[in-house]
Structures are given as structure tokens and as C-alpha cells.
């Protein structure tokens, strides 16, 4: 009998499990959950001062307002007022001092959001202003950090720099980025019996929300349950930040003894929560006449904001990616987490990697312009080798480098060389429009660099009718994790994917999970789910062998059926039989990533199980009168290993690229002189729209991809890496700016039209000055 292939197995590009619900509006997000009777709505009053002592808070006027059920300040928190994920003392509500404009000071729960907001305005807060630190430079000068600096080095950068035939120094500013998940932060806290708390939270990290809520309430962790079915986007912004939102809702619910919902509106969300860190990179680089980099001393200083949050790990990852694809013989990298009186910056797709990578790409681009070569030539010259020149600044040898292949393929398919020539011609015509072209590669390390986080759990139940319920620690934020894991489980049991029920992530089913972050969702949870499925399958095979009296080797699962020697029954039939025979049909699964370790003291180890690679070419046209520009073409080639779902993976590549492009072009965070963020809504903070999509957009998954590391079905993580393909857009813009300036120019990120125009003007002015002084 010909075996039917199951629907929705591994490698099939099946639709997102919720696609139908998305388009009909039936998909339920945290704010859509039916509110239990008596639910209150919360409003958070934020600090209006960047840095001040809280002399007094008078809430008597608030309490007196109609509809108000509870008001809380730091003093009301029954447990510990601290949601620090790595370092302690990160208050949810300001205690004694405020440290940025937007910091939660008090919260009100009332019968409606309007009532809560109106009541909160009656609070009387007496601030005694203190001098704020607003810029990275100020914090560096004051040596004001939220975590100790970290250094990685190999060889002797100082000596090698002294001996290098050519040397240059400089700096680059790299802007931050708001997550702008379409769904703002939201939580619904519902008191339970025994003083327990159930929290629905829009979070990538339910275990963290659970733990922090327990800590705030002074309860053991088991007294809190956190559940999330889906998020309307996360991108890292819902890793640590939701603990603040859920925490406030839970404390209010505890105090009011009623359910409390807290949903931040867009402005409050953007004013209150952390973003991608902006960085200042300072470099001292030595190279030879060919453009080979010999030595580099690089300082990466990040704006951490007022608390540490995850900044130390983020700056670590920036350092881990400050080599990108390039071998640097003598290197010293140092990272600072600068304390400033601004939002506490946090995880964002790439987690520091993009900033580190942009810095080294900038350095390489500068070298190319100094030696007068096409930057792609210089990039290739500096690529890591496969067997030699393959050790990173953190002493991990790279064993899976396929950059040469990827580069050759994209260079050819994008007609890079021919287009370079055409562009040079165009730029020679004297038009006010200039074109730019750039090729950039990426290498992104996969694994949490904090080794213990590389673990995951899953829970699978098979019901007596053969239907399967799947649960794991990963969360769904749009990236398609749920469907991918369901495909993995369907593949194991050889049943159609619709037979696998995807259930909401909850701390009640799988405990002690790591955040769905670091692109690890499928790698970790897929393995855990596979392990759980295999455990049940092993039991079913043993049972089938007994029942049908065949050796276990003669039992096979295929095409919704189980074949035991000559007998062939449906999966459901076998399950029914197994149930009657009292076989356990439920199992957990657990996975921990092998091989990874990193010693921070010596800054060495193998922090990454493997690397993801990708390459991109972008072409732009720039109006040199206004700095306006357009991305006219982009070619992307990205390695996802063996794809578990090519449709989903393609979506991650395209979406990541456009998000990265936004970061480097139109998305600009702007604070005024008092430290108030003025770009806190889409009217002022501009993420890409449809028109920003490159007019000619050619995206390919690397067909020969196969992960040499033993990952789930040999796939590769794909959540974060493609974001950095957008570096090509930035360097294409720089290329055009240089063409317009008649030589070298300096471009900081994000390359808004303003920065582009001013870069051209400044470069022209300094060239004129140079020419004048030469006369």
C-alpha cells in the first residue's frame, strides 16, 4: 500500500496556525480576553522628571475620586519591589527617587480606564530635582555604569596597532529602536483562592512574569500562574518589560481583591518601556595597504538607561558580534553599560549583535575607502577562514563557515559587479541623484550566551481518540513557533498537523522556562517537544509489539497509521488500544543544548552551538538636495539550515530585513534637553510602511542549507539574524553619500534624510577646507 504523506509535516510550508483567526479577527490577544465580572482598569502615573528625589507622594485626592478601587505606590507592594532579571534593585514603582521621565510612580485601579486616568491626575508628587545624565558620553566621562565593563581580547592590539602600516581612529553613533509591536503591553491579573494570582500577560517570558509577580506579592512561585496564547509582536520588548506591567496589575488586584487589567496605550508604552540600546562605538584600527585588518581596539558603549535590565548580556552580545565575519588577528573589545536617566533599554531582536556588527562593518567600509577598493573586496579579504584564521575574539573556533559559498552565489545572482559599474557611470553624470550599492554579510551566534538558559521543556498528551495536545515553554509572538513545533510533533507521530492541538503557553504546564528569545524558540522547544513525543512513541511501539506480537523493530508510524508487521491500524485505533491497556499517554520532554559554555572571567569558551549566516546586496538612490532616498533593489540570501517551514522562515527573513532597515533609516528616537522622549507614537516615530519595501526585492533561502550541528531536523534559528541583512541598506546609503561628497564621508545611524543630507554637506565642507589649506 502506498503510504500517504501526512499533512503539515516537517519541511512543509504550511500556513501559520492562526492565519484564519488573524484575518477574521477571531484571534484573541490579552486585551481581548473576556473580562471577569468586576474587572478594574489600571492607569500608571509616570515621572515627569528625569532625575529627582521623591520628597512626598500624596494620593488622598486620588483615592477620593469616583470609581477608584485601589491606589498603590512603592510602599504598598507586599513583597520585594524589584524586577531586576540579572541584578537586584530594579523597582517596579519608584521608591525614594525617580530616574527617568516615564518611570512608574504610582498606579490606580478604577472601574474604567477614564476614571483611573482622571483620578491619577489628582496625585500630588513633590520632586526635588537632581542633575540628570542623558548622554552616553556623560556617563562614560563619569564612569557611571549599571554593570561592570566586559572585555574580550586576543593577542596584543596595542602593539599590533603601533606596528600596523596604516592606522585610523574614529567613532560611530548607532541609534536605538523602539519595538513598536503593534499590540502594546498588556496584562490581566485575576486573584485566585489561597491568595494565588493568575496573570494573563502579553509576554515572551511567562516564567519571568510568574517569578517577578510572586516576588512582588511575597509569594512562592507556585502561587502564581502566567499564561499567554499569543502576542501581537514582541521582538524582545516583551521579555523583561511585561513583569512591570503584570506586576503592577497583580499588586493592584491583590490590593483591590478584584481582577485588574493594565493595558498601556501607545504613548505610555513608548515612554515607559525600554528599547534597543543606542551605542557609541570608538575604534582604533590598523590595516595594511591591501585592506587587511591587522588590529582593532574597539569600545562599545551602550545607553543602558536607569537600570541594568539585560544590558550586560546585550553588551556582551554586541562584543560577540563585533568581529562579524572577519578575522582580526590582534583585537581588544570592551563594552560599557552606561547609566543614563532614560528608559531602561532592553532586549530587541539581535540583542546587541546588530550594533556590534554595524560597528565592524563601518570599520571595514572605512578601510575600503582608505585603500581605494570596492568594500566587497575588502570584506572578502577579511573573511574568516574555514580551518585557519577561524578563531573569534572569544576563542571559539568557527567550524561551519559557509560565507564563501553564500557570497559567491549572491554576488553572481545579484550581478554585483556589473551593477557597480553602472552605478559608477550614473554617478559620473552630474545628476543631483546619486546611487549607492553595498554587499554585507552576517554571522550570528546561536545560543543564549548565559549558558544555563539553554534549556527547555515540553508536555504532550495523547487523548484516547488519538488527538494530541501540545504544550511547551516557547511563546507565540507571530514568528510561527507554535506551528513549527506542531509540525515537529506531527512528524514524530506521523499524523496530520491538525490532529495536534496547540495550547497556550502557561507556567502551570511547563515550569522554569527560558524566554522565547535569542532565536532559540524552535531549537530548544522543538527538541523538547520531540523528546516528549518520542517518549510516548516508544511506549506505543512497545505496546504495539506486544499487542500484535511483532518485534519492536517491525512497528512503524507513517501517514496517520501504525504498521506492526502485517497489521496496519490507524494512529487513533492504536492509541485507543493502548489506553485500554493502561499505557501512559502523556509525557514531558526536556532538552539542554550540548557543548556550550562561556567563562566570563577569561572571556573565552564556546558560547554558541553554531552560527547562522546570510548575505545581502542593496541598492539605493539618494537625492543630494534633500537627503531623501529610496531602496531600489535588495537581494537577500539567508541560511536557515534545513527549513522546518519555508513559508514561515521566509517571513522571518523578509520581516527581519525590513525591521532592520527601519532601525537604520527612518526610526529615530529623540529626547529633548530635559530627557523627555518626544518620539513616543507613530506620528513621530516612523517604522517602515509598504512603500518602503524595496521596489525590486529578491529573497532566497539558501537551498543547500544544512546545519552541521545536531539541531532539530538540522534547521537553523532564524528569528534574529535576518535583521542584520539590512546593514546592506545602510552601507549602500553611505556609498551614495560618499559618491555625492566626492570621497569619504561619515554617516551615523539611523540614516534619516536629515543625516544623509548633513553627511553630504559636512563631507563637502571638510573637503573644501582641506583643499583650501592645501593651497
Amino acid at each position, binding site marked *: 500500500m502506498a503510504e500517504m504523506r501526512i499533512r503539515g509535516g516537517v519541511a512543509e*510550508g504550511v500556513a*501559520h496556525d*492562526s*492565519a*484564519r*483567526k488573524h*484575518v*477574521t*479577527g*477571531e*484571534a484573541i490577544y490579552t*486585551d481581548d480576553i473576556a473580562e471577569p465580572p468586576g474587572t478594574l482598569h489600571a492607569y500608571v502615573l509616570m515621572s515627569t522628571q528625569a532625575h529627582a528625589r521623591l520628597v512626598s507622594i500624596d494620593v488622598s485626592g486620588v483615592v477620593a475620586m469616583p470609581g477608584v478601587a485601589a491606589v498603590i505606590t512603592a510602599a504598598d507592594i507586599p513583597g520585594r519591589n524589584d524586577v531586576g532579571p540579572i541584578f537586584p534593585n530594579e523597582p517596579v514603582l519608584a521608591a525614594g527617587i525617580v530616574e527617568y521621565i516615564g518611570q512608574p510612580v504610582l498606579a490606580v485601579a478604577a472601574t474604567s480606564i477614564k476614571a483611573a486616568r482622571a483620578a491619577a491626575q489628582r496625585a500630588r508628587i513633590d520632586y526635588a530635582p537632581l542633575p540628570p545624565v542623558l548622554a552616553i558620553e556623560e556617563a562614560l566621562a563619569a564612569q557611571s555604569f549599571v554593570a561592570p565593563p566586559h572585555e574580550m581580547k586576543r593577542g596584543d592590539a596595542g602593539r599590533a596597532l603601533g606596528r600596523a602600516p596604516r592606522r585610523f581612529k574614529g567613532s560611530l553613533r548607532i541609534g536605538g529602536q523602539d*519595538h513598536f*509591536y*503593534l*499590540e*502594546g503591553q498588556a496584562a490581566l491579573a485575576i486573584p485566585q483562592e489561597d491568595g494565588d494570582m493568575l496573570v494573563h500577560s502579553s509576554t515572551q517570558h511567562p516564567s519571568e512574569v510568574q517569578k517577578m509577580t510572586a516576588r512582588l506579592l511575597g509569594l512562592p512561585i507556585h502561587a502564581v500562574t502566567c499564561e499567554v496564547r499569543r502576542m*501581537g*509582536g514582541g*521582538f524582545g520588548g516583551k521579555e523583561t518589560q511585561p513583569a512591570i506591567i503584570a506586576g503592577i496589575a497583580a499588586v493592584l488586584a491583590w490590593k483591590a481583591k478584584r481582577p485588574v487589567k493594565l493595558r498601556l*496605550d501607545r*504613548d505610555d508604552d513608548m515612554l515607559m518601556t525600554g528599547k534597543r540600546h543606542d551605542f557609541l562605538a570608538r575604534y582604533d584600527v590598523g590595516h595594511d595597504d591591501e585592506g587587511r585588518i591587522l588590529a582593532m581596539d574597539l569600545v562599545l558603549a551602550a545607553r543602558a538607561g536607569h537600570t541594568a535590565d539585560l544590558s550586560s548580556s546585550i553588551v556582551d552580545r554586541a562584543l560577540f558580534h563585533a568581529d562579524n565575519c572577519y578575522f582580526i588577528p590582534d583585537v581588544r573589545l570592551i563594552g560599557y553599560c552606561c547609566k543614563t536617566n532614560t528608559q531602561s533599554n532592553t532586549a530587541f531582536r539581535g540583542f546587541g549583535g546588530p550594533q556590534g556588527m554595524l560597528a565592524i562593518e563601518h570599520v571595514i567600509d572605512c578601510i575600503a575607502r582608505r585603500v581605494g577598493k570596492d568594500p566587497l573586496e575588502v570584506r572578502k579579504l577579511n573573511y574568516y577562514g574555514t580551518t585557519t584564521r577561524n578563531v573569534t575574539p572569544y576563542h571559539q573556533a568557527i567550524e561551519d563557515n559557509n560565507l564563501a559559498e553564500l557570497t559567491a552565489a549572491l554576488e553572481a545572482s545579484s550581478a554585483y559587479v556589473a551593477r557597480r559599474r553602472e552605478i559608477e557611470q550614473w554617478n559620473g553624470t552630474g*545628476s543631483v*541623484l546619486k546611487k549607492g550599492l553595498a554587499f554585507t554579510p552576517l554571522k550570528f551566534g546561536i545560543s543564549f550566551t548565559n549558558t544555563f538558559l539553554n534549556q527547555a521543556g515540553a508536555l504532550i498528551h495523547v487523548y484516547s481518540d488519538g488527538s494530541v495536545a501540545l504544550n511547551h515553554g516557547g511563546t507565540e*509572538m*507571530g*514568528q*510561527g513557533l507554535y506551528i513549527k513545533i506542531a509540525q515537529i510533533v506531527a512528524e514524530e507521530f506521523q499524523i496530520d498537523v491538525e490532529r495536534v492541538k496547540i495550547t497556550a503557553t502557561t507556567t502551570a504546564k511547563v515550569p522554569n522556562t527560558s524566554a522565547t528569545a535569542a532565536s532559540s524558540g524552535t531549537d530548544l522547544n522543538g527538541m523538547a517537544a520531540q523528546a516528549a513525543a518520542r517518549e510516548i512513541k516508544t511506549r506505543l511501539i512497545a505496546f504495539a509489539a506486544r499487542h500484535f506480537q511483532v518485534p519492536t523493530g517491525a512497528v512503524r508510524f507513517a501517514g496517520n497509521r501504525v504498521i506492526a508487521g502485517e497489521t496496519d491500524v490507524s494512529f487513533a485505533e492504536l492509541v485507543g488500544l493502548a489506553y485500554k491497556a493502561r499505557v501512559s499517554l502523556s509525557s514531558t520532554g526536556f532538552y539542554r543544548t550540548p557543548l556550550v559554555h562561556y567563562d566570563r572571567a577569561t572571556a573565552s569558551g564556546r558560547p554558541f552551538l553554531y552560527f547562522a549566516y546570510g548575505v545581502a546586496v542593496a541598492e539605493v*538612490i539618494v537625492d543630494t*538636495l*534633500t*537627503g*531623501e532616498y529610496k531602496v531600489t533593489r535588495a537581494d537577500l540570501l539567508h541560511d536557515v539550515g534545513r527549513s522546518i517551514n519555508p*513559508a*514561515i522562515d*521566509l*517571513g522571518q527573513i*523578509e*520581516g*527581519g530585513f*525590513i525591521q532592520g532597515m527601519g532601525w537604520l533609516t*527612518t526610526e529615530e528616537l529623540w529626547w*529633548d534637553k530635559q530627557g523627555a522622549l*518626544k*518620539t513616543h507614537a*507613530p*506620528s*513621530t516615530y*516612523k517604522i*517602515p*510602511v*509598504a*512603500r*518602503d*519595501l524595496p521596489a525590486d*526585492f529578491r529573497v532566497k533561502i539558501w537551498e543547500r542549507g544544512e546545519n552541521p550541528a545536531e539541531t532539530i531536523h538540522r534547521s537553523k534559528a532564524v528569528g534574529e539574524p535576518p535583521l542584520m541583512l539590512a546593514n546592506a541598506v545602510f552601507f549602500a546609503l553611505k556609498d551614495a553619500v560618499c559618491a555625492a561628497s566626492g570621497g569619504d564621508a561619515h554617516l551615523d545611524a539611523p540614516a534619516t*534624510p*536629515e543625516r544623509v*543630507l*548633513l553627511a553630504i554637506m559636512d563631507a563637502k565642507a571638510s573637503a573644501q577646507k582641506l583643499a583650501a589649506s592645501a593651497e
Partner: protein
Amino acid sequence: MADAVRFLLNDEERAVEGFDPTTTVLEYLRGAERLYGTKEGCAEGDCGACTVVITEPDGDGGLRYEAVNSCIRFLPTLDGRQLITVEDLKAADGTLHPVQQAMVEAHASQCGFCTPGFVMSMFALWHANKSPSREETLQALAGNLCRCTGYRPILDACQRMVAAGEATDSFDDRAQETAERLASLRRLVGLRYVTGGKEFLAPRTLAELTEIMARHPTAQVLAGGTDFGLWVTKQHREFERLVWLGEVAELRRLAASDTHLEIGAGVTWTNALPALERHWPSFGELVRRFASPPIRNSATIGGNIANASPIGDGPPPLIALGATVVLAGPGGERDLPLEDFFHDYRRTDLKAGEIVVRLRVPLPAPGLEFACYKLSKRLDQDISAACAAFAVRVQGGLVVEARFAFGGMAATPKRARLAEAALAGRPWTQGSVEAAVAALARDFTPLDDMRASARYRMASAQNLLRRFYLETSGTAPARIAYG
């Protein structure tokens, strides 16, 4: 006697009372109706997550489908209209609408939070155009943000939704019936909606309107609500009495004589676009970059003028073209040159009880060169950092008239008198243009804020004058084509 607000929620009639007049349609849907498909992403009209479709009779027995932002649309403005939300598209048997089906097939949703809004924008597009070009699609989607997909699959879905070949849907099948039901909701006397001491009035004629304004000179005038809505959703202001212009027939009139285009203050940017584009293609392009289709479907020209923002896009081209604004108040009508309407930051010549009734724009005289340019961080659906409009008339090689107007360069939309003077009577050459460029620096002290620095605003404003010269005198492209 106060009225209820009567409208069709898809095919069910509603008569609602007791909601504050500034309750937004989004609040109403998610609150009273418990319809959670329509999302809030910003509450300021800028993300499209809340997009719904409102239909009105198109005057030809059919219906016009307009996407609007429910987050800043006030409930009483639904009176006499049909409201369609994402929940209504799927057939009773579960069959997806072609638009929805295309989105699923194209893998066009990831987190799905933006998706209902996209579906509704696409639903409006589907009803307007069964073979949208890529350019038309980009314009139709300019008001919808997606943070996940990068848009490519959504654009694919827009191709797929028409490729499926379905010419009509169940809404078309019911169009006649719907139109009849809407006709039965029509009022002879304007809506007067009263609740909790607050009043919402929707006069149907100019006479009714002026009478109301005479009685209540301090009443708040509401037009499309695309500026006004934000006072409610962002500043949380409360209003005692609103007078809505959306039903005043005279204000929605657009007429051209041999010499002038007369645009009623209540004409939306969507409805003004064809005429503006016909006479001044460059103005048309500016309007296409003005906000997004859902906003332009509500936003009026009069609102843009009366709002008097220094960064509004309407005033610079209208001033450069020499438009006159007509005001009406208890004392009757009066008119004045638009540039004189703006006194200071958000202060205008409007007296209590007065409203803007129309604009009179002279049609292009022979020899007129006109262009307007908008600079913003993002090309589509962004507010101008600077907006410049240039009109020159050259005769015998000499500039006989120059009118340059700028937004973003001062506290009000303003003419560049010194730059104009530098050109008056001079030859239209690069040399004289450079003199005018230099004069511009003395004309303005530009804003310095999150949208742009003063340095950029000045430098780019000067370069825009250069661009204008290049475009009028040369053939080489002097800017990147928009479409």
C-alpha cells in the same frame, strides 16, 4: 427632543444612546459590542490596526466603501451610515472573503495584530478597484503598519485577492437593500444627540449651521476629526457641545469656474484630490502623501486650514497659489487671503462663532510654474518636517510674480517674502535663484524638534528652491520619482 444615533452595524440596525459624544467607534466596538477583532495600536490614526469600513450611498444607487480609522472617529458620526468590521467579512458558512482568503494563502499575517486593519483597507480597495496596480496598492495601504511581515506577502495578497476573479461579494449582493435601509435612516433635520449634559449637533445645511453657531458661538466645530480626535484620545479633553460639519451639504461642494476652483471647507482630501491633481499635478502628489487614505477619507481641507498647524500640508501650496479663504459668522461672510488667516502659532483670524466655509483658488494663469514638495523622515504617511510650495510666473525670461510659501519654517505657514523679492523682476536663472536662496535664510527661523533640526530645515528648504529651479529649467530628473 434628543435623537439616538442610528446606523447599520453590518446588517443590523442600531439606535444608540447614552454614550459620551466623543466615544470613539473603536471604544464602542470593543466595549458595548464586545467585538474584539478591531484593534487599537495607537489611538491616533497612524497605525491602521483599527481600520473599519463605512459605507454611504454613492449617489448612483450603489454604495461607496471608505476605510476609516475607528480610533479617532466619534460614534455619533456613524448616524445614517453602515459600519463594517472585520467580523462581518466571513460568510455564515465560514467561507472567507476573497480578501481574507488571499491573506491566508499569501502567508501575510505573522502576529496578526495588524491583520484586521489590513483586511479592512484591502476590503475597501477591493470594492474600489478590481485590478489595482502596485502603486495603487501601496497608496491604499499607506495607513497600515505591520511590524512583522515586511509587507511583501501583504502586497502579494492584494494581487491574489483580485486574481481569484470574484467580481462581487455578499455586500454587493445586498447593496441595494443596504442603500434603501440607509435612505430610511436619513434625517430631514440634523441630528441632535444629547447625553450627560453634552450635546452633539449635526446640521444639514449652512443655514442650520450658522444659526447654531450664532446661538452657541463657543461650540466646538468638528469636521473630519483627524486633528480633533487626538485631543480626545491623547489629551483626554472633554467637550460640552460639538457641532459636526460632516452633514452640511454646502460645505461638501467642490466647483470650478473659468477662473477659480471653489473647495468647500468640508470637502475631504480624498474628494479634493482629483481636482487638485488635474490642475496642479504636484499638489496631487502632495495630497497622496498627506496622511493615508483612511485619514484623507475623513480629513477636510477646512479642518486643515482652521487647525493652523505650522506643519500642515494644505496651507503652503494654497498660499503659493494665491488662495482666498471665505469665512462665515453671525455677521455674514467675509474673505481674506489665506496667508493673512494665520496670525501666530495656532492663532487665526477666526472670530467666535465663525467657520471656514470654502477656499477659492485661482486656476493656473498662463506661464505659471508651480510645484510643492514635502520633506519627512518617511515618504508615506508622515508629517512634514518642511513643506515648500513655489509658484512663479515668468514672462520674457523675467519673473513677473513669485509666491513661495513654507510650512515647518516658522510658527505659522508663511510666505518667503525676502526670497520672493530677490527674484521679482529678475531673470529666471540660476544666478537669481541663488540670490533668493540666500534671502531665504533671512526669511525664516525654522523649528528645531524631533522631526528635524533647524539646520536641516533651512538647508533643505534652500535646496528645494534649487530643485524647483532645476525642475522648471532642465530636463534631467531633479528628484526621486514618487510612484
